[in-house]
């Protein structure tokens, strides 16, 4: 069970529904460990600023996490968390291990429309 303020993806069915209903989605699949917490934290912070993106986490040890773990884009990944970026249900980018704010926002800006949020603005 992930203790974050993000919405959780709990099952394959839910994953499918999210893909069908949303254009831009970021899912971080991990545990409550030191490499994963900073990514959840960044996502929580970006939720308000990237209204065009839906942010979720998924428990790496959950029964349905194979939907991410076995994705071809994650082949060769050996570092938690596995973070996926989907556009219209298709994976446009996947990263392994810890990422910082700049790395996450540059992926969001590259693959999804740039948000109104200016990176120069302070997060409240």
């Amino acid at each position: 069970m992930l203790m974050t303020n993000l919405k959780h993806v709990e099952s394959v069915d839910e994953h499918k529904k999210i893909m069908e209903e949303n254009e831009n989605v970021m899912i971080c699949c991990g545990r409550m460990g030191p490499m994963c917490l900073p990514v959840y934290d960044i996502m929580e912070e970006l939720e308000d600023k990237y209204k065009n993106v839906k942010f979720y986490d998924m428990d790496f040890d959950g029964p349905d996490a194979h939907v991410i773990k076995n994705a071809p884009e994650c082949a060769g990944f050996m570092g938690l968390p596995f973070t996926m970026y989907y556009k219209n249900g298709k994976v446009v980018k996947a990263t392994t291990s810890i990422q910082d704010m700049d790395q996450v926002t540059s992926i969001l800006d590259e693959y999804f429309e740039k948000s109104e949020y200016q990176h120069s603005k302070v997060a409240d």
Partner: protein
Amino acid sequence: MDDIYDVIILGAGPAGLSAGIYASRAKLKTLILNEGTIGGQVILTHEIANYPGVETTNGFQLINTMKKQAKEFGCTIKANLNITGINLSNKIKEIEVNSSDTYKAKTVILALGGKPRTLNISGEENFKGRGVSYCATCDGEFFTDKEVVVVGGGNSALEESVSLAKYVSKLTVVHQFDHFQALPYYVEMAKNNPKINFIMNSELRGIEGEASVKKVKIENLSTGQISELNTNGVFIFIGYSANIDKVKDFITLNSSGEIVVDNNMKTNIEGVFAAGDCIAKRYRQVTTAVADGTIAALSASDYIMNLE
């Protein structure tokens, strides 16, 4: 934005959050600005068993409680920022964030903490998450029945080696000296583990592979000879260094690059205090960081009272 804070604290690890708790409880208008995730190194810690008064906990829980306490006393906390300017030379100190917003304060507490050292060799950044790791507990299972190299010779390196040995088929510790810095207890545990081998007096010179790590280049420091070792992973535990990059041009540091303070956590600049792992001291623990943060906040409070 033009408001003047009594205290701006740079850093939201245990030192910064403790300073935040004490300063805001003393009714000082307090702002904590943090680069990165709130919690600092503590969120790297799976288990904390030596924080008095708290039975075994994890870093996430401990830091969440500290954050909650600071906020409840009225402290404002902003995280995941980029501190782009620090001007401490005037009576009113100025901190610029994300190249745009400037915050002003009568005092500043530097609670900048430390960060894990990296090797800075070819392949390290490229293979992060594809064989290069800094966390055995997080990534150990991906190396089940594989061979790995651990770089380092301190407590963390040897403790993490023993924990990794549960997964891997073979583990080679590469250490730059001919002896370990770790406590004898950790050395003994590692030496008694049949899966763990040692290459002493040696340093990694490169990490190579394709989709993931395949081999490392190792230099024997006595002979200068470079050899190759096939491996599936490289775990790096070579210690921590103080985060002083943004203050080193105007804050007095010791020869190890740590901030010099007096007993009241005062730095060389009037109205500027420092606390926690970034200061020159021998023992770096949550308890010592929390104590430093407390002293820094109370000293800042004194300083402000004397201004008025």
